[in-house]
């Protein structure tokens, strides 16, 4: 194999970390975006609805 073990390890360590941070930022934005608040509140309440049949 052309790629040496050390290079692969270094790549994994650095880019793995960047990727992790990037994804985490994305998740934080999604979670705290004000426009999502209504959606989340609705979801939270909707499981408690009493009706037990699919909507058509």
């Amino acid at each position, binding site marked *: 194999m052309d790629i040496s073990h050390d290079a692969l390890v270094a790549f994994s360590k650095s880019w793995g970390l960047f990727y*992790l941070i990037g994804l985490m930022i994305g998740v934080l934005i999604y979670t705290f975006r004000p426009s999502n608040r209504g959606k989340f509140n609705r*979801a*939270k*309440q909707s499981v408690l609805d009493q009706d037990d049949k699919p909507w058509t």
Partner: protein
Amino acid sequence: MILTLTETERQVALAISVAVALCGLALAAAGNQDTMEIHGWLILAFGGICALVVIREIWGPEPPKSRLESYYDEPIKFGIAASMAWAVVAMFVGVWVAALLAFPDLTFDGAWASFGRLRPVHTSGVIFGFGGNALIATSLHVVQRTSRARLPDQLSAWFVLVGYNLFCILAASGYLLGVTQSKEYAEAEWYADIWLVIVWVTYFILYIRTLARRKEPHIYVANWYFMAFILVVAILHSINNLAVPVSLGHAKSYTIWSGVQDAMVQWWYGHNAVAFFLTAGFLGMLYYYLPIRAQRPIFSYRLSILSFWGITFFYMWAGSHHLHYTALPHWVQTLGMTFSVMLLVPSWASAGNALLTLNGAWHRVRDDATLRFMMVAAVFYGISTFEGSFLAIRPVNSLSHYTDWTVGHVHAGALGWVALITFGSLYTLVPSLWKREGMYSPALVEWHFWLSLAGTLVYIFAMWNSGIIQGLMWRTYTEEGTLAYSFLDSLRAMYPYYIARAFGGLLFLIGAVIGAYNMWMTVRAAPAKAPLESDVPLNAAVAAAGRG
């Protein structure tokens, strides 16, 4: 149950059953010198029975169109029954293997009853049989309710559940026959593994199709956990089980992974099976049945999202903490340790979220054993994830690894968290699925709760003690600088704890038997619930009025 399938579906079901039976016949023929032969006949019988069940009612009337106005719950009922059956069988085997450690001659001189063969029957039986069936059943219940959509067809769910149980039977019976890969929690051999891939892909597609039919724009968070469970288990299973069979007529195969690479793949699989099978899936249960039972919305929806992504990220890195101080490269060990400690954050966020949901409903927790099951499950989830992060720290691991402490930790999670949240969810689900007013006997639920709790506590305290004593004895030196104890000394010290552990397990088993009995009687004998107005499709109500 066959009558709820459409005519085309019945024909397809028959075709699949016959195909499975023929595969069994082929395996039996190809493997006629090998244990494979027995499995061939077993598959043939299984396919044959399924075919007979279908044929008996294949010409029955087409199900009414009105079926589309209610959720499709028949296969879910089957899943719950299978789950409880596996619970009783596999926990019984668990008590048996626990007893074998203290009384090694309980094997009746049979090869099949030795510890090494029975132990995977216990682990696969509880994880895949009990846990897996419960997960599939509840996930199909939750996805329909939270999407406000019926399953897209009737057959897929049956295929998934019945096919999955064929896998479980092949796995468990194989271990008794000596058919095993000796890869922990992935012992089943290649043909069972291939079958599971087929079943699992169908499950995944069924889930996605149901989600695609949803009438709610937002996907409820419980489904996220179930989705992660289905997806990641598919990835883990197919990579870890890549193997070269000796021949198509041999049950035996050789994994393509070897040595240190195999160790890493194995524990990447093993630890993520804990993460996505035994954690994510059951958190999915928690996020639906806990609010329903407590009649309170989840404390913080945002927190549940954050902890979801936290768990999905972090768990994947943690597997290497099973390999501290081994021939695995040091940096991989450190990485595993670091992420294991970080995992505590999303884990405790989930446990805290569950407990805070109950805040303000403590009187219900006091009075309702079902809700108490879920509360104690959340507490044990918190305890065992803390313990997990702690044990992943390298110096701690040097003491705990290879000892009973690990076994105790696993059971704090498996009994205290996984089993209790399952029982809590099933006690919520059974009366509502079978349209009963409540469980047959609330007193028996109470008994089940206290037996489970007592059993779990006895078990984990016994294992903490034995594990720490064992670890300390192995590393104790005399003043002259020699090892103070022989291995046998440490084994002798274990016997009282092994007996205590078997007793704790027995209490837990009795609880599970009571639970199964109570559910059985609920279905058989509990009074039916007066249906809600909205529960009955309009034309059915008119028809009932007409008959009255």
